[in-house]
């Protein structure tokens, strides 16, 4: 299991997990320059649960890609655990994605025709975990998201909610510093969405930092901090004093239908 102690031993100068300073990203499309981000500064500490909100075109996806080390900023600095990500090579970025970042996508992005446990083991194949260790870590991660009994199911045999849990387990398996979720509930019905948010809240309760991109205000209600993007800039950044507990919300929701069992 991943516990807060795992993170404590890293020891960082200012204790900030992420510190971003005047981050800008400009795409050049032919002769047109598109300013996706126009100077964003922000800091995120360990154990936070941040919801990043904004309409499409607000720059939140670009921001997410940079946070996830999938893309590099045009200007400004992005320090992840005191490492300047902007100065890293392609391979070093791959290593950061492997060790420090867990991704959860809207479309789940599981490998089809590959069992749940093998999907979860995948990040470990690119690190140096031994075979026995891999299986154990993957089983732990699947247990954490409550799918310990479906390890040999293929994505096509799982419901959307279950697939997203497999994706979350995959994001967790390397004990990352942050879990980045990009519209994780976008493809799910409202009950399953709350269910997935419950998983995130439990993980956050265990000390895992979660950054969630969403355009749904009621999903953002489950986060501790809400940041709103508009036109490539941060328009609002506030503590969510009225954080909702997913486990309680779900009790009040009507049972529409059972999740599709295979």
């Amino acid at each position, binding site marked *: 299991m991943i516990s807060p102690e795992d993170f404590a031993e890293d020891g960082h100068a200012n204790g900030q997990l992420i510190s971003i300073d005047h981050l800008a990203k400009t795409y050049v499309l032919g002769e047109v320059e598109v300013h996706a981000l126009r100077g964003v500064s922000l800091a995120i500490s360990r154990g936070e649960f941040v919801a990043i909100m904004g309409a499409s075109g607000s720059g939140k996806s670009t921001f997410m890609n940079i946070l996830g080390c999938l893309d590099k900023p045009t200007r400004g600095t992005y320090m992840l655990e005191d490492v300047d990500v902007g100065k890293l090579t392609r391979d070093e970025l*791959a290593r950061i994605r492997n060790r420090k970042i867990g*991704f959860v996508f809207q479309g789940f*992005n599981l490998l089809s025709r590959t069992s749940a446990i093998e999907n979860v083991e995948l*990040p470990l194949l*690119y690190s140096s975990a031994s075979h026995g260790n891999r299986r154990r870590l993957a089983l732990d991660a699947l247990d954490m998201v409550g799918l310990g009994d479906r390890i040999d199911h293929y994505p096509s045999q799982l419901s959307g909610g279950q697939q997203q849990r497999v994706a979350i387990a995959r994001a967790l398996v390397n004990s990352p510093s942050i879990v980045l979720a990009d519209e994780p509930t976008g493809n799910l019905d409202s009950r399953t969405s709350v269910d997935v948010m419950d998983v995130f809240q439990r993980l956050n309760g265990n000390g895992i930092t979660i950054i969630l991109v969403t355009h749904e205000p009621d999903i953002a209600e489950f986060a501790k901090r809400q940041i709103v993007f508009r036109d490539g800039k941060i328009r609002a950044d506030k503590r969510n004093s009225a954080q909702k507990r997913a486990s309680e919300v779900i009790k009040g929701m009507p049972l529409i239908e059972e999740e599709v069992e295979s």
Partner: protein
Amino acid sequence: MNITNTLLSAFRALKRNKMRSFLTMLGIIIGVSAVIVMLAIGQGAKFSVEQQINALGTNVLIVIPGTQQTGGIRVGAGSATTLTEDDALAIQKECPAVALVSPGTRGGGQVIAGSQNWATGIEGTGPDYLEIRKWKVGYGEFYTEQDIRSASKVCVLGKTVADNLFPDGNPVGQTVRIRNVPFKVVGVLEQKGQNAMGQDQDDIILAPYTTVARRLSWSSNLRQILVSATSPAGIAAAQSQITDLLRMRHKIAAYDQDDFTIRNQADLATAATATTDILTYLLASVAGVSLLVGGIGIMNIMLVSVTERTREIGIRMSIGARSRDILTQFLIEALVLSLLGGIVGIGLGIAGSGVISSIVKWPTIISVLSIVLSFGFSIGIGIFFGFYPARKAALLNPIDALRYE
């Protein structure tokens, strides 16, 4: 990602599209088996030609008399009566590159033994004839130097002659009458089969050349002198030494033509093997083209595969795969395709060569070299044609790959 996992995931990826993987491999299978079969046919042809020529002895030279010229009319080669026993002895004595010499005379006629008779050729030889021709006595023995000196009426029968004259008995010790001259049979030669021209080499009787000269051809002139050089490499030296010696002995002026001809088995062998070599290269290069086409097939399918799996590549990159990992993954897939194809192709090629051998009766030889070559070629093709698609995959931008629909 370690090699075992990469291999496993390559096999899994190929299994996902069984038909497509099989068809892609088929290109390599056909190419490799074609190369194997063609090399086997070529080398089989070369081997059988070499064998036929070696049967004559590769270091053998035959000296025959030149043409007879009477008032400007030339008769065919060997018609002159210029070679003598002394020439043969001189060659033996004075040419250092010469190992063995066997003077030869020839006769022919009806041979009678008991109630059987048979028409065949009689070759008068020296004692070293069998050694020069790499031939052996099957049973009985060969006549001796003493027999030759005293012109004994002894002979050795070829297998065909022995079978025809003595269908149910051992000829050794029996007497045959050659043109009414009785000869004692001292041995029977081992079977040698047909020569390169399809003549039955066993249809012959060997006897001391002295006996043949005195009793059958009534001429002391030699029809040929069979010479073996000390080694195949010494043939040229032997040839020039013999030429010089005979020109001197026959007192031929500097600008006059030789009154003898020297035929060289090695020249024949070289020419024949050069022809079969060209045949082999031609066949193999045609087959090689099909191997190349197979390689292009792999490249084509790998390119399709990279495009189809762009999203998978994106997913793998997002969870930490480096460019190198993606490159290896696709390269290994191409390599597995070409290697499996290569192995199946080698098996099919060996089987195919066997089938051709038994149906068309064409000799085929599968050399280790041709297998190693095909195997190496299929690895090479996998790497060469797999590299471009793999590199294309490895250089994808993670975001673009992830967003690819």
